[in-house]
């Protein structure tokens, strides 16, 4: 495995094997050439180029491009890593952000924002590409252009934790000229927003869409019939405020269950009604509006405490959410849609010091960003779990991108305040750690709140 670097201020004539000798462009790295198992860290900044994939990875040995949004591997600062089809942020100059000139397999892209291609932002360009992973990306599409166009009988694609701003076209389009069965393509934990359609298949069966949120024109659409018996499976999704949520070419093609439909012109066309689907409003969390103040915002399309799908049994639920946050182990405590609900409140029921504490009403996680330097640092917090709490005891997790988590488990008695503490030397970069307070409660009856108080860093 070779680790390679791309960044602003680099030079494609350099070897790209260290940040100080980084390539200037993604194509510069690709043309080195990259090889199976390589990891390419791309520093924050704007890359005005069209990356053409020249090489395939191999099974278990993908070629991975990572947008280094924290800067820990590259510039030490962090920020958005953007690939754009424009030279001036006004008009388009290139067709795509990523394409290929032949079949490419086992490719992974993580952490990029892509925009302003006059064609599809990511395209397999009609070639038989397989085993791609596209994750943690934001794609802002152009008029009548697909955000991701898998038009060459694509199989084994995983598209997860992405946000799609869709023009009057498609977010993801799986297309085959002749029917393609059992494609094993997975779409999960994605947000689809805009005037187009979220996930579209033409003749490609065996697609799973789960834990995603759709808002805009259409949710999932089959434009050309699948082989009889092939399906698109849709679970744990939110379809709200759409023109049409689900459209098949014949009943039985889209198999939907454990989804909510709300405020749509039509919930389903040529699609059977899932026995466990509901018509509950998502009740998204608003941000606090007070003129003159900018309060910390909720994640877009996060559910509110009033939502009846914030904790509800689904089917084969995703184990994490759009932010990669681990979902509760109890299936019925998982949220439908892309964003896992986290019920953290200010409580005056329990307090270790003062009059209030942070209350996790059920299984969930609350994070705090703590600026740090690379010196020995002690993190402490008091925790209190109620009598009927069950499952793994509450935890304090010290997280830093690129560093293994440090987890401190509550080993104290139930019904009392217990101290969780650990000391460690954070990495120099990024210059912060995340303190994550965790309830792993699995109980469904009785009193199982978890309270945290007096978080100190010294």
């Amino acid at each position, binding site marked *: 495995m070779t680790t390679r670097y791309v960044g602003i201020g680099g030079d494609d004539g350099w070897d790209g094997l260290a940040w100080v000798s980084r390539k200037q462009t993604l194509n510069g790295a690709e043309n080195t050439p990259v090889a199976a198992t390589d990891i390419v860290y791309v520093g924050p900044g704007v890359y005005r180029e069209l990356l053409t994939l020249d090489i395939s990875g191999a099974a278990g040995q993908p070629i991975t491009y990572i947008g280094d949004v924290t800067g820990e591997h590259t510039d030490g600062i962090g920020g958005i890593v953007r690939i754009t089809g424009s030279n001036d942020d006004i*008009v*388009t100059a290139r067709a795509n952000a990523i394409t290929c000139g032949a079949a490419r397999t086992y490719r992974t892209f993580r952490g990029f924002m892509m925009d302003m291609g006059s064609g599809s932002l990511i395209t397999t360009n009609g070639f038989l590409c397989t085993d791609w992973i596209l994750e943690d990306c934001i794609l802002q599409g152009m008029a009548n252009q697909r955000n991701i166009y898998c038009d060459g009988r694509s199989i084994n694609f995983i598209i997860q934790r992405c946000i799609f701003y869709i023009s009057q076209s498609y977010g993801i389009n799986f297309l085959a000229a002749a029917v393609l069965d059992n494609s094993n393509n997975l779409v999960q934990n994605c947000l689809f927003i805009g005037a187009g359609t979220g996930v579209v298949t033409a003749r490609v069966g065996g697609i799973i869409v789960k834990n995603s949120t759709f808002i805009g024109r259409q949710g999932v659409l089959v434009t050309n019939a699948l082989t009889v018996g092939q399906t698109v499976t849709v679970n744990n999704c939110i379809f709200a405020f759409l023109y049409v949520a689900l459209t098949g070419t014949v009943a039985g093609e889209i198999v939907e269950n454990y989804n909510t439909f709300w405020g*749509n*012109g*039509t919930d*389903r*066309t040529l*699609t059977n009604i899932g026995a466990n689907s509901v018509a509950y409003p998502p009740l998204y969390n608003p941000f606090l509006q007070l003129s003159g103040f900018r309060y910390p915002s909720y994640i877009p399309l996060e559910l509110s405490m009033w939502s009846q799908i914030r904790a509800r049994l689904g089917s084969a639920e995703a184990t994490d959410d759009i932010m990669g946050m681990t979902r509760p182990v109890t299936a019925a405590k998982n949220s439908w849609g892309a964003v896992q609900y986290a019920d953290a409140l200010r409580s005056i029921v329990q307090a270790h010091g003062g009059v209030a504490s942070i209350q996790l009403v059920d299984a969930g996680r609350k994070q705090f960003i703590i600026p740090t330097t690379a010196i020995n640092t002690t993190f402490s917090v008091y925790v209190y779990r109620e009598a009927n709490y069950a499952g793994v005891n509450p935890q304090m997790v010290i997280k830093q991108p690129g560093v293994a988590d440090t987890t401190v488990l509550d080993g104290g008695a139930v019904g009392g305040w217990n101290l969780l503490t650990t000391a460690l030397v954070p990495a120099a970069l990024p210059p912060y750690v995340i303190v994550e307070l965790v309830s792993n409660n699995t109980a469904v009856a009785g009193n199982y709140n978890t309270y945290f108080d007096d978080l100190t860093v010294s």
Partner: protein
Amino acid sequence: MPYRNVDQVMITNWVDTGLTTPFSRYTFTLKVTWTDTDGVKRVHGPQTYTFPNDLATMPLAVRKAFANQMILSMVRVTLGIDDWEQYT
């Protein structure tokens, strides 16, 4: 309180029954101001079009999709889910 909602539409058995249905024809003048991929502002028309005659080149699947929308709109109004003002 329950609300009116279209839970499911099963529109099937499309049969081509010929071209002889009486249907009012219209002509109208269309002007489109648009921008090409180079950012150049362009103008199409004013040009006279005829409805439905000029839909002849529209692919059958697309014509079918629009027909679905029109038929469904009529049914929604009939069911009291929508009123015609929403479509104008």
